[in-house]
């Protein structure tokens, strides 16, 4: 019996009910429908998992109907589940369920409650489509769909101008990525004669390297857009304008990892395109460092975590690029745990401080919100790579593989890990230690919100050894073991990265708890460099000046004045309004427009005649 379709169908039904009737339903009913649809979907995933045999040898594949058939080329609406998909499904529905529950508490007092949950369910539908897809086209359906939902949800607080702008930015930047992805898809269709994963992947080995490299590079463009990698990362920090559960679900745990998933899914293509692999490793590494430095200087708690997400996604791409696909997926999973927790925790903090997001106006919250403090400590330990937390295992796997690939990549990665530990703990100390500097009385959040946080905290701590992804996925990809060819042993490498992490934590304690004057001294000592980093390297401004403004101005002034000279106002070029009838009709004839338009047609005609009649025929 075919059952996979039920997994995405459940949230879709939730979307339909809340979207159509939500306005008339009570809040309790809306949240019940929304949460239940996702929780049932999770249950369905578990059922598939338990009933499926060995996913490595016999993946589940369900074909529903043929979507397009043209000649020998056919694409079906196919869902397929192998081990990789299973991991993604569990992450998406599992964390999705938790965040839906949390959101019922967080969004309680917001206008448009039903609209929010309708969008959120729609997002789940598309995201599940993305990971279940058995071919690139269906994956693309999910890919575009999640982008759309992300746009709707970022702009959810549409009364705020900044939210609308951020939504637009996300959509437009992602168009660049989609452009790359769709080109890649066409190229795959032409090269392989199919878009089915089961047909494309085994055939990859026999295709010319140049073609595979082009495909892989185009896929990377797509992945950079969706997974916020340099130079297309600019939309993600702005996307924090959306409600916090959205930041946690879409912009940390699920959608932004779609690029990593897609590259991993396309591993056979990448493996045969070494240039593309190097490119993605470099992009990932650069993004990791770049975003981490920005994270060091931000004061908005959500912005800090946003840059941290960009940076951690860079890690995943580093893993993919050095060939450690399963390590990349492992980090994807653990990151989903601890980053969702960080965001939800941040939401709880913001809630506690009555909407304040600037960490300079927080402080001392451990007294008022002890549970939030505790769970955020778990998440911060995990992201800092504290031994035996989830982040420790996955980050270690990536760094080990990076060392085997090129030792310098390991060292850059380790320094970045130190920075990561520093800025996350900086945020932690600024929020929970010291005295409260905000307004009103901070309060702890309700248990609807805290419950999911506790579950995520357990996963952040224990998720690494509970789910050993490389072991689960073993055999799927050629694994690069750390330190296989000489150099320091694995334990040494691990020790170094842990030391960097702990140093970061220690330094932040020193600077933000023990001696709070240090940061200011450093800031003034660095001067210009600090300003540069604090302003995010002025990348937004550079884009604005180099691309956005020239495009708009060009369109408005020089170029299109020539093309779009015409205006319709019924009074063309001073034709008198007083004269009626034939007189004014005739006067229209004298309109400069018509004559200049006719001139256009004549010039065009001459060019066409010369090109086809005289020039073309031999």
């Amino acid at each position, binding site marked *: 019996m075919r059952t996979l379709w039920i997994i995405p169908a459940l949230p879709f039904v939730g979307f339909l009910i809340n979207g159509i009737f939500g306005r008339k339903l009570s809040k309790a009913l809306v949240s019940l429908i929304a949460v239940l649809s996702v929780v049932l979907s999770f249950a369905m995933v578990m059922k598939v998992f338990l009933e499926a045999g060995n996913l490595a040898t016999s993946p589940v594949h369900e074909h529903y109907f043929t979507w397009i058939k*043209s000649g020998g080329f056919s694409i079906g609406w196919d869902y397929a589940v192998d081990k990789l998909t299973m991991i993604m499904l569990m992450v998406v529905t599992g964390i999705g369920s938790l965040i839906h529950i949390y959101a019922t508490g967080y969004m309680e007092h917001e206008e448009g409650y039903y609209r929010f949950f309708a969008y959120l369910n729609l997002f789940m539908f598309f995201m599940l489509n993305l990971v279940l897809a058995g071919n690139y086209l269906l994956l693309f359906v999910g890919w*575009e769909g999640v982008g759309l939902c992300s746009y709707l949800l970022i702009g959810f607080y549409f009364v705020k101008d900044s939210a609308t702008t951020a939504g637009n930015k996300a959509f437009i930047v992602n168009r660049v990525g989609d452009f790359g992805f769709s080109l890649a898809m066409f190229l795959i269709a032409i090269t392989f004669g199919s878009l089915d994963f089961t047909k494309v992947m085994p055939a990859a080995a026999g295709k010319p390297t140049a073609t595979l490299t082009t495909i892989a590079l185009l896929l990377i463009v797509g992945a950079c857009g969706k997974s916020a990698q340099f130079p297309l990362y600019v939309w993600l920090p702005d996307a924090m304008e959306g409600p916090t559960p959205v930041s946690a679900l879409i912009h940390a745990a699920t959608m932004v990892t779609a690029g990593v998933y897609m590259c991993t899914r396309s591993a056979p293509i990448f493996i045969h395109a070494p240039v593309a692999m190097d490119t993605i490793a470099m992009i990932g590494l650069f993004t990791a460092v770049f975003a981490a430095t920005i994270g060091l200087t931000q004061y908005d708690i959500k912005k800090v975590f946003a840059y941290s997400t960009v940076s951690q996604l860079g890690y995943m791409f580093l893993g993919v690029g050095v060939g450690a696909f399963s390590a990349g997926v492992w980090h994807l999973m653990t990151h989903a745990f601890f980053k969702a927790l960080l965001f939800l925790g941040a939401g709880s903090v913001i809630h506690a401080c009555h909407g304040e997001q600037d960490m300079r106006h927080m402080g001392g919250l451990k007294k008022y919100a002890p549970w939030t403090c505790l769970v955020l400590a778990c998440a911060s330990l995990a992201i800092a790579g504290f031994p035996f937390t989830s982040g420790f295992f996955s980050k270690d796997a990536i760094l080990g593989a990076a060392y085997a690939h090129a030792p310098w990549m390991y060292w850059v990665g380790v320094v970045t890990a130190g920075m990561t530990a520093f800025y996350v703990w900086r945020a932690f100390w600024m929020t929970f230690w010291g005295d409260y500097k905000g307004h009103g009385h901070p309060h702890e959040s309700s248990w609807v919100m805290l419950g999911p946080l506790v579950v995520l905290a357990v996963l952040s701590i224990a998720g690494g050894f509970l789910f050993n992804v490389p072991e689960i996925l073993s055999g799927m990809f050629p694994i690069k073991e750390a330190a296989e060819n000489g150099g320091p042993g694995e334990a040494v490498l691990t020790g170094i990265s842990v030391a960097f992490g702990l140093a970061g934590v220690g330094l932040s304690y020193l600077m933000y708890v023990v001696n709070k004057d240090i940061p200011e001294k450093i800031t003034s000592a660095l001067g210009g460099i600090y300003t540069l980093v604090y302003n995010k390297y002025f990348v937004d401004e550079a884009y604005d000046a180099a691309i956005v403004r020239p495009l708009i101005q060009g369109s408005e002034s020089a170029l299109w004045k020539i093309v779009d000279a015409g205006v319709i106002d019924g009074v063309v070029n001073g034709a008198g309004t007083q004269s009626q009838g034939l007189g004014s009709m005739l006067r229209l004839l004298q309109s400069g427009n*018509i004559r200049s*338009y006719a001139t256009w*047609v004549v010039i065009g005609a001459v060019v*066409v005649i010369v090109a086809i009649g005289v020039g073309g025929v031999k």
Partner: protein
Amino acid sequence: MPANFAPSADDMLRFGPETILTIAGTLLMVLDPLFAKKLPRMFGHLSIAALVAAIFAAVAASSVPGLAFSNLLIVDGFGTYFRILVLCIGILAVLSSYMYLEREQAETGEYHALILFSIMGQCVMVTANDLIMIFIGLEISSIATYILAGYLRNDKRNNEAALKYFLLGSFATGFFLYGIAIIYGLTGTTQLGAIRSSLNTPETSLMVAGVAAALMFVGLCFKVSGAPFQVWAPDVYQGAPAPVSAFMATGPKAAAFAIFLRIFLTAFDRIAVSWAPVVWACALASMTIGNFAALTQNNLKRMLAYSSIAHAGYILVALASNSEIGTAAAMFYLGAYALMNLGAFAVIVYISGKGETNLRLEDLAGLGRKQPFTAAMMTVFLLSLIGVPLTGGFFGKFYIFRAALDAHLTWLAVLGLLNSAVAAYYYLRLLVVMYMHEPGEVTNALEAPGPALQAALILPAVGTFFLGILPGTVLSFAQAASSFVK
């Protein structure tokens, strides 16, 4: 020359849709004085009935495929597809006209008769097998549309639009006719198949044929509003009554593309090496000019006019690929495009108000809150225009760019995709205004759309989803129909 001049029964059946439309159109004119005062909506009902009957006639005609009237007409899958398409376009245009005509108090039999005549001309065009028939169909369709563009005689914008359309249109038709004359002089025939065979003989001058092809190209490119002959479109679409603009941007365009494909892929197949690069350049120019000029428009009709130029560019990409899958892609795209464009124009008819005063972008502000149904429908059309998956627009683009890559038009495909990425921006602006701005004066004053307009919104939306979720049905028909009788 046939011995018996009386057409056979089969011939009459093959000409069924045109016959029905002509009779119905004439009837509408006769009935005008009877109903104009008492039952003005009657005209609309009658023309919809005629269009539906014509669809049945077109289906019936397809059961006897073949040549008719001494090879002047050809009923094949291609012709049938386009006949049904323009008839459906007619139905949707009439549905969105009810509200408009009532608001302007301008319901006459004449309006509907002109629409029926125009569609009749398009039906002739798409089934014509002879350049003379094509020309006659083109003129029937165009003249009716010129008048429709200036339908509200006291509206200056209408006058200006009609006059511009008429003058420039006639000018372009002149080019087309001149091309026919040269071809006749060169080959001694006006039948497409015969021209093709004549061009395949070595003694025919391909250069003269090239000049003739170029002249026809100018005429046709004008009719489909492809660059560099697009200059008229923004002014005319902006000035004409909104439902007429919707009709002009879809019906005559679909028919013009049909003959464009038929003439160039049958008669001028031999000299494809010389015209294909020009189509390439025109396709790129149309996409670029359309999309970039649309970026800065603030008038909704003018924006959609530029958008329609850009979409003509996408279809020209399919033509440039000069292949059967390209033809099928163009056919599919024209269907998807007609639906989403008619739908979007129906929303404009709805919000524009009496005298079409509300056509600024801001006039859509808050539509999502005030009229959620209409806004949702508009969202569907905009997403399809952007080319988001699960809508017809997505598969339209998918097929076109795949056809282009199959024909090794890599750069055209790349630039086309880049273009469609840019295009998202101006459609998105509408979405933003609809959902993220506070309702303004215009949207606050709107009343819920009436049943006819609701149908004019729901039908294209359903069609858009149908083409996006189950494209196979239409596509396989288009593929079967894409090999011309040569």
